[in-house]
Each structure stands twice: as structure tokens, then as C-alpha cells.
């Protein structure tokens, strides 16, 4: 994206001249305080909102507002917004059927995916009967099963217990897609993303290695963040190596 600007009607600019390039296969963490424009950035990339000015492209094709782009997946912040089918199986199959797979092909892919996640027993469950962690994993699976090239994840680790959080970290680490992950959980981003972009007040304030950005205490403090605990020098070592 080049010189991207956006504002909601009758409001001030939410994004002011944002420039960002992401290479294929990169995992980029987007950090910023509430209201900094992270979710708005994702909505623009997904073609849900149209920018006021600037240029947006994905895989060298301009982003067209309102058009479905099968190479882009978006995991929303609230899994209930994403799990809209009567059963888990139907939800995972929703995107596949829209891509043109037959029911038989979709069923086979769903079964394989649920087995990989060790969640085969959830196949016939209604989504509202799932736990928070299960909802989150299934909402991510519903997007990833469509094999997008780029995935936008908006606070994917929120409301996960430590076990589900660890499972998600391993899952994202092992994925080959280009990931953009917006999150307040700095330790989560340190473990999943090699690159971090700090947004505040609609502008990119820092862009570089996750450890370098998040290890810069004055930078983090000036934008309302604390240095992640794992980057704080310890007098007595107490972390497992």
C-alpha cells in the first residue's frame, strides 16, 4: 500500500499516508493502541472499505472494494461474526463450496482438516455450543481451509486459554501463508512474527524486526506499550531454554 488515507464519514483521518510492503511468506505483527487504525487497515486490505486516497494492491492486483478475492482470508476479531452456519462442518464447507468445490470434495477436505486439528468430534456441533477456544480455532480453520495466500488475523489470540493459545501459536508458526496479525499480545507476536509494524494515530511509527521494535523501550513507552517480559534483561535467569 502506498500513501493510504482513510476517514469515516464526518470524522478525522483514521489512516494518514500509510506505506507498507509485505513480501510473500512474511509474518508481520501489527501493533498499536486502541483506535490506532489496525482493524481499519485490515478492512481496507480486504476490500470492505474504500480508501479516500492512496493505492492498495495484493499480489500485484489492485484491491477492488466489494469484490471477493480468493487469495485473501480475513479472520475477524469476534468468532461469532464468522461462524454463521448451523454446524461446524457446514461452516468449514461454506468457503469451499463458494470456490467451486463439489460437496464430496469439500467433505473430504473438511474431514482431513478437522483430523489435523484433532477436532473431528466437533464436526456436527452447532457453533454456539463450542467453547471460546474451539470457536476461535474453527473460525481460523474456516478461512485457512480455502488456502488463501495472505491471511489477515485481527486479535486471534483474544479470549484463548493458555493451551489454546499455544496451539494457535504452533499452528501459525507452521503455516506457509503470508500473515498479518493485529494484536495487543506482544509475547504472542514475538513468537509468531519475525517483523513488526507499530501504528499509532493513523501513521506507521516503526517497521522492522519484532525483537528490535519491541525491545526498544523508549519507543514502546512513547506509544503506550511496555517492553515484553521476555525481552527484559533478567538478573536471575528463570526462563526455560
Amino acid at each position, binding site marked *: 500500500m502506498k500513501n493510504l488515507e482513510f476517514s469515516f464519514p464526518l470524522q478525522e483521518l483514521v489512516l494518514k499516508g500509510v506505506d507498507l510492503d509485505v513480501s510473500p511468506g512474511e509474518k508481520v505483527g501489527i501493533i498499536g493502541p486502541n483506535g490506532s487504525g489496525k482493524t481499519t487497515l485490515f478492512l481496507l486490505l480486504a476490500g470492505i472499505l474504500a480508501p479516500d486516497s492512496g493505492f492498495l494492491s495484493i499480489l500485484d492486483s489492485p484491491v477492488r472494494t466489494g469484490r471477493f478475492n480468493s487469495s485473501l482470508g480475513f479472520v475477524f476479531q469476534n468468532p461469532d461474526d464468522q461462524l454463521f452456519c448451523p454446524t461446524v462442518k457446514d461452516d468449514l464447507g*461454506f468457503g469451499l*463450496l463458494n470456490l467451486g468445490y463439489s460437496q464430496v470434495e469439500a467433505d473430504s477436505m473438511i474431514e482431513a482438516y478437522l483430523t489435523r486439528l484433532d477436532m473431528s468430534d466437533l464436526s456436527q456441533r452447532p457453533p454456539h455450543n463450542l467453547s471460546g477456544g474451539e470457536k476461535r480455532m474453527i473460525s481460523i480453520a474456516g478461512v485457512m481451509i480455502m488456502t488463501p495466500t495472505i491471511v489477515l488475523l485481527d486479535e486471534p489470540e483474544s479470549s484463548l486459554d493458555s493451551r489454546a493459545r499455544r496451539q494457535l501459536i504452533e499452528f501459525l508458526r507452521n503455516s506457509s501463508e503470508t500473515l498479518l496479525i493485529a494484536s495487543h499480545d506482544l509475547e504472542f507476536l514475538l513468537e509468531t512474527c519475525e517483523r513488526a509494524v507499530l501504528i499509532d494515530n493513523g501513521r506507521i511509527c516503526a517497521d522492522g524486526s519484532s525483537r528490535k521494535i519491541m525491545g526498544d523501550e523508549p519507543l514502546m513507552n512513547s506509544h503506550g506499550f511496555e517492553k515484553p517480559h521476555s525481552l527484559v534483561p533478567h538478573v536471575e535467569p528463570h526462563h526455560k531454554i
Partner: protein
Amino acid sequence: MRVFENWDTSLKIPALFLLMMSMALIRDQHLMPLLPCIAAILFIASGLPLSLLLSRFRAPVVFLLFVSAFLMLFSEGDTLVRFGPVVLKLQGVILAVNTCVRVLSVITIGIIMIHTTPLSGLSAKLKRMLIPHILVDIGIMTGRYIMVIGEDYSKMKTARKLRGFVPGKSIVRRFGVIVPTAATLLIKGFQQSERVFNAMRMRGYGSIAADEGRNDAFEKPSTASFLMLLLTVALSVLLIVLEITVETA
């Protein structure tokens, strides 16, 4: 028994719906005993637990009690029994019994239809029945999110109680709280519907690929499904023919 669960949904729903309609048309009291017999046989064949049926009957039975009382007390005709000022009419009692039998039989068939239809793949099957896609999607979404709205309302009620709200006798105070709660739920629902629609679009809903490129491997219903369709249609037609015959006799 999995007779109904193995019956193809796109044949089962129209067949059972037709049966329900034909049962609802029965008026003659000589044919009335047929209805609970048919309903009972089909219910036993469905393998559903009796406790499910009884739990689903609770609300309709309360309604039927009021309807029956009205029919028995205010119908015209011969007096059956008198309790002081309260007079039960014979024709009213017959009408009340017929109504209850008919309604409960139809509801039983409806319960069999709903509880033996797997949710998975329901949307695709309903669309194959030429029901407008948008209506199917609205119905499925309503069923999915009505629970969410119910949970939200429940949480709001708890939050109100924890902040000391006691409904009391004042209707004004009650409305003063219920109306904003309903408005909040409506706005939340609208906002969530926008987000859900965006999530659906992000997964290809309404795209050209979804409309044109779909390779729908339509699974042909089994012979057993067609046989059951024929039997159910034949039974429905028989009921209607019997009703017309008895009426004109």
C-alpha cells in the same frame, strides 16, 4: 430406527409438509381417530424419545386448554353438563376434542420433520427444493443467531439485577428499562449482521465464482427415499379423499 434420518431431506420435507396439511384438513369426527394413530406410528418409527415429544407439547397444550375451554363454554348446541352457571355444550366438547387431536397430530409430524433432519447440508438441500435462496439464508441465519441474541439478553438481565434493578409493579419503570434493552439488542444485532455479511463475502458469498463455477455434485436420493415419498403422498391423498367422500356422503 433411522428411517426418517436416512430419508433424503429434499424429499422428506415436502412429503411430511403435505401430510401435515392433509391432516389439518380433516374435519369429520369419524376420521379423527386415524390422525393420532398415524402420528403415533410415525413417531415410533422415527425413534425419537417420548420425553422430547412431551416437552414440545407443553406450550401448545396450554394454548389448546384455553381454546378448548372457549369452545366448550361458548359453542351453540345441546347442553352436556351443567356446573352451576357454567354450561358445557356437547358440540363444543366434540369440537374441542377434534381440535386437540388434529393440532397435536400435526405438531407430532412437525417434530419428527425437524428432529430427524440433520442441520448439516440443510441450506443446500432447501435451495435444491426451489425455495428462494435468500429466504433459505435468512431462515438459517435466524436459527443460528437467535441463540446469540437470547444469550445477550440473558447477560443484560443478569447485569441489571447485579446493579440492583428490581422490576417492581411500576409498568412505566419496567418499560423504561425494557425498551432501551430491546433497542440495544436491535442495534447490536444490526451491527453484527453487517460484520457477518462481510465475513460471508470474504469467503465468497454472492461472488461470480460461487454463482457460476459451482460444481454441485448433486447426490441423487436413494430408492428408499423415493418409496417413502410415494407412501407419504399416497397417505396424504387418501386422507383428503376420505374426508371428501365422508363429507359428500
